[in-house]
């Protein structure tokens, strides 16, 4: 099926869950990724139980530090 992953049309295996998509897309540090599905941020505990459908829009949002230590 086709999804829109990070703005790009992407062919993926049919019926993937969000967790499986993270693996198939070779996301190296899934713990560092927040997932937005069709405009709503998905809680991490729902990654395994949420199945994706044709045409879904998925955004991987990465934790990013950087800057300077003030804490």
């Amino acid at each position, binding site marked *: 099926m086709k999804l829109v992953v*990070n*703005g790009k049309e992407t062919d993926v295996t049919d019926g993937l869950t969000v967790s499986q998509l993270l693996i198939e897309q070779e996301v190296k*540090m899934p*713990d*560092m990724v*927040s997932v*937005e599905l069709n*405009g*709503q*941020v998905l*809680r*991490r505990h729902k990654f395994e139980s949420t199945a994706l459908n044709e045409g879904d829009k998925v*955004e991987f*949002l*990465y*934790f*990013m*530090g*950087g*800057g*300077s*230590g*003030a*804490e």
Partner: protein
Amino acid sequence: MELSEQQIERYSRQIILEEVDGAGQEKLLSSKVLVVGAGGLGAPAALYLAAAGVGTIGIIDYDHVDITNLQRQIIHNTADIGTKKVDSARDKIRSINPDVMVRTYHTKVAAENISELIQGYDFVIDGTDNFPAKFLINDACYFEKVPFSHAGILGFDGQLITIIPGETTCYRCIFHSPPPEGVAPSCSQAGVLGALAGVIGSLQAAEAMKYLLGVGDLLTNTLLTYNALKMDFRKVRLNRNPNCPLCGSNPQITKLKDEEQAVCDLKSDVNV
């Protein structure tokens, strides 16, 4: 406040802009911006805000200038190695623009002091390098209702978002809580391109100025991501999250607390 002849001359290249003009310049001169972290992001942000005549600039940093900072933290010079970053930053700001009043805070931000630190500021620049600080700034700005620019950088990637607390998507709307300990790479481990910090820090300064002037469209409800290798800028639209633990409809966070988890192994490290 009335602009002096010298001020009119100094700021002429932005006063000439319709969106700024004399009234906007006066607004900038009476504005207060707090820069948290005088590092890769805070350095360019503070320099541009100072040059533009933001009247009061607060700088928070507990650290001292190290030789490894100089590759990207352009507010610090070789001669500053070993000095407090806040002192080094203050000296450069004063030398660029004596109109600016600089307040320095040589301290770490924590739940016990952050509210007091941000009170009275019109806008906050988050230039910190670690997730507990980023969550703390987000939460404190929410409770104190101070708008801020969040940003992060790593390697060749950077991202930022402007947050108007209670009105637009906040950091916790996107990232519920800090990542598990040990999984987050730091700039000292993964490296970072100096010019990338300059790009993102400058964008933060531009957002602060737009907010202070009340012009243009702020980068709210939108995460701007940038990859320097591909020279790819992307805007990701992000709606407010009704399940946000801070600003959602059923908030679980009702007061400030320090996040337990220490991000990366930065505590023993110098700076990112």
